[in-house]
């Protein structure tokens, strides 16, 4: 396996966005992830599934520099990510959301998004100390962009509300908006449907499709809801006990005996 299902012919016209090769990670002597491979091409929507404790979130944390892999390499657009601090990885174009929402709960909705625009603010410390003309121009521009993004997410009218006070579904949406404000090319979503009712999950599916087109993204998605994963992902990687046990398009995965045993079988 080279990080893609064998059955899928690599789309030649599409750039490789992310290449994860032989990544392993240990917590002490516990092997959380072992020889993990993943190759994402531009514009793909890929799911990462597996039972609880399979190491999915650890993979996300390795991708975003929260943990440093014990072995292996992660390349994003050809640039090695291993050894880089999280914020640089994010600035290079990987953005993520969290399993349990981590907004800046006491700040306004607008500020949540504006914070993520910081690397692109375009003014210096001196500008912000003196509130120069440049500062005012750039700040206005930044605010407008943030507002534009919020309006895309139907959050514009709530821009002055405190983020922690939003209803749950909107907090999820705001978190995605904030991730997009960091201007990613790869968006990694950690269980975006957690805690949502079926109706909200439907909306979320549409949302993910929509932002992928709108922002020209590659999306990697960890999810428990089979319905969500099976219906929107182009292909799926299945993990169990830190190892990849299957890859393929949803139909293949669904019929894979190992997967059924490890995961789906328990649901039957």
């Amino acid at each position, binding site marked *: 396996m080279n990080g893609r299902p064998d059955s899928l012919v690599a789309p030649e016209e599409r750039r490789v966005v992310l290449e994860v090769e032989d990544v392993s990670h240990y917590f002490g002597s516990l092997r959380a992830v072992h020889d993990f491979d993943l190759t994402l091409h531009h514009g793909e929507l890929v799911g990462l599934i597996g039972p609880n404790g399979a190491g999915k*979130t650890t993979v996300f944390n390795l991708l975003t520099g929260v943990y440093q892999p014990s072995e292996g390499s992660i390349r994003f*657009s050809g640039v090695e*990510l291993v050894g880089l601090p999280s914020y*640089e990885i994010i600035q290079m*174009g990987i953005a993520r959301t969290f399993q349990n929402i981590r907004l800046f709960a006491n700040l306004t909705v607008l500020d949540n998004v504006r914070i993520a625009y910081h690397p692109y603010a375009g003014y210096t410390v001196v500008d912000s100390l003196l509130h120069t003309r440049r500062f005012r121009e750039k700040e206005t*521009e*930044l605010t407008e962009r943030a507002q534009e993004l919020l309006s895309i997410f139907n959050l514009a009218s709530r821009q002055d509300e405190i983020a922690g006070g939003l209803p749950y579904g909107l907090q999820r949406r705001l978190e995605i908006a904030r991730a997009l404000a960091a*201007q990613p*090319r790869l968006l990694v979503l950690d269980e975006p449907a957690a805690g949502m009712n079926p109706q909200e999950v439907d909306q979320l599916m549409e949302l993910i499709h929509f932002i992928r087109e709108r*922002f020209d993204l590659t999306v990697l998605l960890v999810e428990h809801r089979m319905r969500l994963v099976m219906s929107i992902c182009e292909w799926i990687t299945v993990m169990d006990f830190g190892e990849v046990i299957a890859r393929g398009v949803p139909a293949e995965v669904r019929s894979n005996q190992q997967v059924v045993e490890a995961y789906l079988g328990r649901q039957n």
Partner: protein
Amino acid sequence: MERSLRGDSGGALLRRGNGIALRRRNGIILNRISQGVFALLGLFVLFVLARAAWERPSLFVSQVLNGLQLGFIYALIALGYTMIYGIVKLINFAHGEVFMIGSFTSFYTIATLRLHEWPMWIFSGIGQQLSVIVGTVTVIMVSMVMCAGLAVVMERFAYRPLRNKPRIAALITAVGVSFFLQYYGALPFAYTSNYITYPRAFDVEVYRAGTVAMPVVVAMWILFAVSVIAYVVLRIRGRQGSLRAKTLIRHPLLSFGLQFGGFLAVILTLVSVEISTGGQVWDLTASNVTLIIMSASIVLQVVLQWVVGSTRLGKAMRASAYDKAAARLMGINVDTVVAATFAIGGGLAGAAGVLYATAYRQVHHLMGIIPGLKAFVAAVVGGIGSIPGAFVGSLIMGQTEVLTAGFISTPMRDAIAFSLLIIVLLVWPQGIFGEPPAEKV
């Protein structure tokens, strides 16, 4: 706003990526250089100390003994800090004041109540020595109970109401309680703001060559040897997979034997054997104060280890420290556990107060601040939340302080003691025995 929201996400970003990452060289070389610099500084300090040890070995060894004594006192305070921090994540700034109250309690029990002589009043025929021992233990117990009570009251009325508020509220409150206790003591009807000479509960005896009974020394060595052998045997059996050995190796008696036997055997031997180098007799001495401090500290620490490691309360404590909500769901009364933790910590600080006052013969209403802070630093150095860490950190702290004062720079003693914190945290960010915080992302 170099990149626009839509469209051209590719090109500009890649340039940015190249700028950030591609031209990176491996920083390990630089890290080696800085480690080298630190190592050189460390070697220099060692060199200064070694030279001092070479020139005046007897002075050096006696300073090390002083450092041990101080370290053992710090250990008692640090244990309280580390336990309380472990369980409620609060730097209990007022812990140093509990220590101070311990000193003052013992001062009053000795000077006013004369409780250290009580066996003599009741059983007039009792031997002088036995009376002193029982009396001293009584004084320590009274202080411990008093301080435990104080800590519990503090927890109940100052910290508990704030437990669900932001952590800073409790921290500020701790600062407030600390100030209150300090300056309440300065009021004319309390302790006044003068230094008060402390009457010891027992007379100082100085042991030197010839005054130590040989059988005692031998007994200590035997205790130590037996403990070491037991430890090694259990270790090997444990490696081979014996569960019983793995449990027994954590037995409090074993660690008591190791520590008590080890420290006392070495010290008593040093004192009782006449060593002379270069025609100079070392003439090392150790007072009973030092020995009592060490013994009391070791005993209390072993008891604490037993409580935390092997009792229901200890299990409840560890569970609460790990996850309060889950502990509550398991039927643990977390409030009681926290109160018990404060009581234990307060009791240990009270004992430390008595020992400190006995050793340095002075009590003062601000005496708790600096030892309290140093003990906290010691707990952090050892790795906060870890009981052996607090112990080891305190011994390091005691040595640093005394050796700095003795051989490097006397006025800088406090400065270097606190620099230790920064230096250690640079090398071991979690302290020596600390575990990295498990963060859920």
